[in-house]
């Protein structure tokens, strides 16, 4: 598995459920794996001041993201017993109900998979220079704020 090489975490548009299913299927050849922990971020149809969020448009400082991601990844591999780890984040427009983040962590045992996945999700939110702009049904928009 490609635990070492990591080109980019970004995909254009939403992450499709079929892609997620195919990623899971590919891991059946990793017979040392006992546990997969997966996190999916889905765009919520929030209502803000009577306006519907119909999509989020993502932009990122790509090069800085990929550098920081590699550091986070190496740190996790050094502290947890992991078989592999994958992150896919959307760029561009992702409609409400669609998936914008797919985090996939595999280990022999569940504690390493679950704890590393949890930590990775928090770091993606706090450390990676990515911005979401909420696009409303009335054609207005506003920059998203992570809480």
């Amino acid at each position: 598995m490609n635990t070492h090489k990591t080109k980019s975490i970004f995909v254009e548009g939403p992450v499709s459920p079929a892609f997620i299913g195919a990623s899971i299927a590919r891991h059946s050849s990793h017979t040392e794996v006992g546990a997969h922990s997966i996190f999916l971020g889905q765009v919520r149809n929030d209502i803000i001041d009577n306006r519907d969020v119909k999509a989020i448009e993502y932009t990122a400082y790509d090069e800085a993201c990929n550098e920081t991601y590699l550091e986070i990844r190496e740190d996790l591999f050094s502290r947890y017993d992991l078989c592999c780890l994958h992150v896919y984040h959307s760029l561009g427009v992702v409609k409400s109900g669609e998936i914008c983040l797919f985090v996939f962590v595999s280990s022999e045992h569940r504690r390493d998979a679950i704890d590393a996945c949890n930590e990775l999700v928090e770091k993606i939110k706090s450390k990676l220079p990515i911005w979401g702009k909420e696009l409303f049904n009335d054609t207005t928009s506003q920059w998203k704020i992570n809480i």
Partner: protein
Amino acid sequence: MSLNIKAFGMTADATETFSFETPHFADTSELRRHLERTYPSLTFMKYSIAVDRKITSGKSTIHDGAEIALLPPFSGG
């Protein structure tokens, strides 16, 4: 030499472009003063300045040809 600046998120709303040039400034405090004079709405925004993809705080030296980026709070995921 001049500096290449990338603006992200709401800072690009203030600068009205994702990428532009400024004269060279010795440190990030001077650069910030220049930017906020040029694009006054930046004054009301929270943002960090990254030099060569590393986030700086306070007053950091800017070497010749550095890659500068304006980073408002992240909201990925």
